[in-house]
């Protein structure tokens, strides 16, 4: 139960949180949209990966690609259905509609994949690395590296390219952006496809650590909320730091206080922050 091992565990957990939260951060931050089907999309991403590997016998990297493509297509369908609400920025309805979609996905997945818990047979998740008294798996290394890489790439894309400014212009005022010749519908569609593809990738990377169930839903990714709000809605660097920080907090809380109440502890942390800094940590 040494401190160094808990730091490793914290970084492992935290990179997982950040990885799964990336799509949400972009969706909420640059497009000002909320998606309460995120948990079910995570579940679906994990199950498509599982199906591709176990039932279709595809290798892990191909299965990841299959999950990304499948959820990207689903993203097109969902966003097309919601387009009118998105263009009118009807957040209230969008929150409820995505919750409804999530419930449909949960029922549909149970029909297709069955109600039993499954495990993703990824060999990396069983390959242990021992460094003296410390240990972690190669899957953890993969998640950590992929998370840093993804956040770096997204940060560069939104800050340093013309497309990044286009997306932010649409987020600021879709009607005004359209006056400048930007097709806001296409931008929203692409951002939502990114959200779905990112959560599929996150699920394919993170889900091999634990058994997956079609009913796991948002409870599985509840830390996404905490990461996004802690990081200051939509801040990319904020979300990465919040994810890693939260992972460390959970690792230490779980090891030294109570493993059963880690979600409650993370929530308490969130509430304290909301009272002190209602706009999140990253804001000045």
């Amino acid at each position, binding site marked *: 139960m040494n401190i160094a091992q808990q730091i490793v565990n914290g970084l492992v957990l935290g990179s997982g949180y950040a990885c799964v939260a990336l799509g949400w951060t972009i969706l909420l931050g640059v497009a000002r949209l*909320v998606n*309460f089907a995120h948990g079910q999309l995570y579940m679906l991403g994990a199950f498509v990966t599982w199906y591709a590997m176990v039932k279709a016998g595809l290798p892990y990297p191909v299965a990841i690609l299959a999950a990304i493509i499948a959820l990207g297509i689903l993203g097109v369908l969902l966003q097309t*259905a*919601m387009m*009118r*609400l998105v263009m009118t920025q009807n*957040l*209230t*309805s969008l*929150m*409820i*509609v*995505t*919750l*409804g*979609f*999530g*419930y*449909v*996905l*949960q*029922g*549909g997945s*149970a*029909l297709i994949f069955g109600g039993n818990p499954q495990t993703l047979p990824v060999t990396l998740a069983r390959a242990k690395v021992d460094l003296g008294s410390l240990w972690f798996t190669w899957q953890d290394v993969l998640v950590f590296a992929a998370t840093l890489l993804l956040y770096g790439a997204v940060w560069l894309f939104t800050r340093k390219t013309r497309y990044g400014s286009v997306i932010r212009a649409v987020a600021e005022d879709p009607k005004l952006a359209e006056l400048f010749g930007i097709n806001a519908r296409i931008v929203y569609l692409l951002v939502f496809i990114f959200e779905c593809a990112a959560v599929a990738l996150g699920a394919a990377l993170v889900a091999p650590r634990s058994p997956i169930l079609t009913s796991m*839903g*948002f*409870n599985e990714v*509840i830390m996404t*909320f*905490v990461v*996004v*709000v802690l990081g200051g*809605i939509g801040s990319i660097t904020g979300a990465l730091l919040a994810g890693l920080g939260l992972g460390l907090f959970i690792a230490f809380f779980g090891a030294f206080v109570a493993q*059963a*109440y880690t*979600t*409650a502890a993370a*929530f308490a942390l*969130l*509430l304290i922050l*909301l*009272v002190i800094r*209602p*706009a999140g940590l990253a804001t000045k």
Partner: protein
Amino acid sequence: MTAIGQGRPASGPALRATVFVVLAVIGLFLPRLLGGTSVAYSTLTTIAIFAVMCYGIDIVLSYLGEVSLGHTLFWAIGGYTAANLSVKYGLNGWSTALATIALCVVAAGFLGAVTLRTREFVFSLVTYAAAVVGYEIAFNWDAIGGSDGIVGISALKLPFGVATFSGATQEDLWPVALALLLLTLIFIARFRRSRLGTAALMVQMNPALAASLGIDPRKIRLAVFVLSAPITGLAGWLYAYQRAYVGPDMFETYFLVLMLTSVVLVGRRVLVGPLIGTALLIAQQNLFSLGGDWNKIILGAVLALVLIFWPAGLIGLFRNFRKAKLSPQEKPQE
């Protein structure tokens, strides 16, 4: 002004009260009219309880225009309070109901206060997360039931001075469920015309006007949220006596999705909307069930599709239909 005047004739209150009493009496004998079987009693009791549960979220969604995703927390608070206090301390129904109201007000006040200065969707996120945390606590804390919950809740006892009402069977519980539903309806009807209700509606419909009148939308949100919590809580209270069991399954997303769907299905800001919505949905699940997974797909799809295609609900659809029938005569003038 005339539009309002027409809606309320001079004999309005007396007439409304008479109609209300007649409907209440019919309601009391409704299960018997439907055959008097125990299925009729239990289905109607369930509809009444779930409708009250939906009215809690209704006043937040319809009049305030914000989304609370944490009402399963109040639903569970009601259930757990009734179960714990009656099983461990033998308290009667009045005491457990009062405790439910008090705990719901405290919980909602706390959640509302910490999200007071945040943006509206953060309010939704925090309420949702609160329900997940509530689940975790209920699941792990053995003192209040733990993962097994509490089995064997004794019959609901409501002493009235000399006599004591005891709701041992579904037949006995129906009058209580009906009374709770009618009280809720009266409460919602009064709320709609109250200062808080009109202020909430103004904040939703015309924020600029509300601001110019010095109304703080965030304080209105807090007040409406705190008011809404005990309604859903009392529904959970009666649900515990009906099922004689509470467990962490009271936190399931099913209840949240059911609440939201019931409200939007018929149309927001319709007094009897949530009641009709609940009745339709429960009838589908009990009488025309296609199995748990298909029922989930139906419930979720109804919720999403209604908001996408008919945001005004079935009432709006009906109004459009009537307008379409009238429009041929009006068209030349346009």
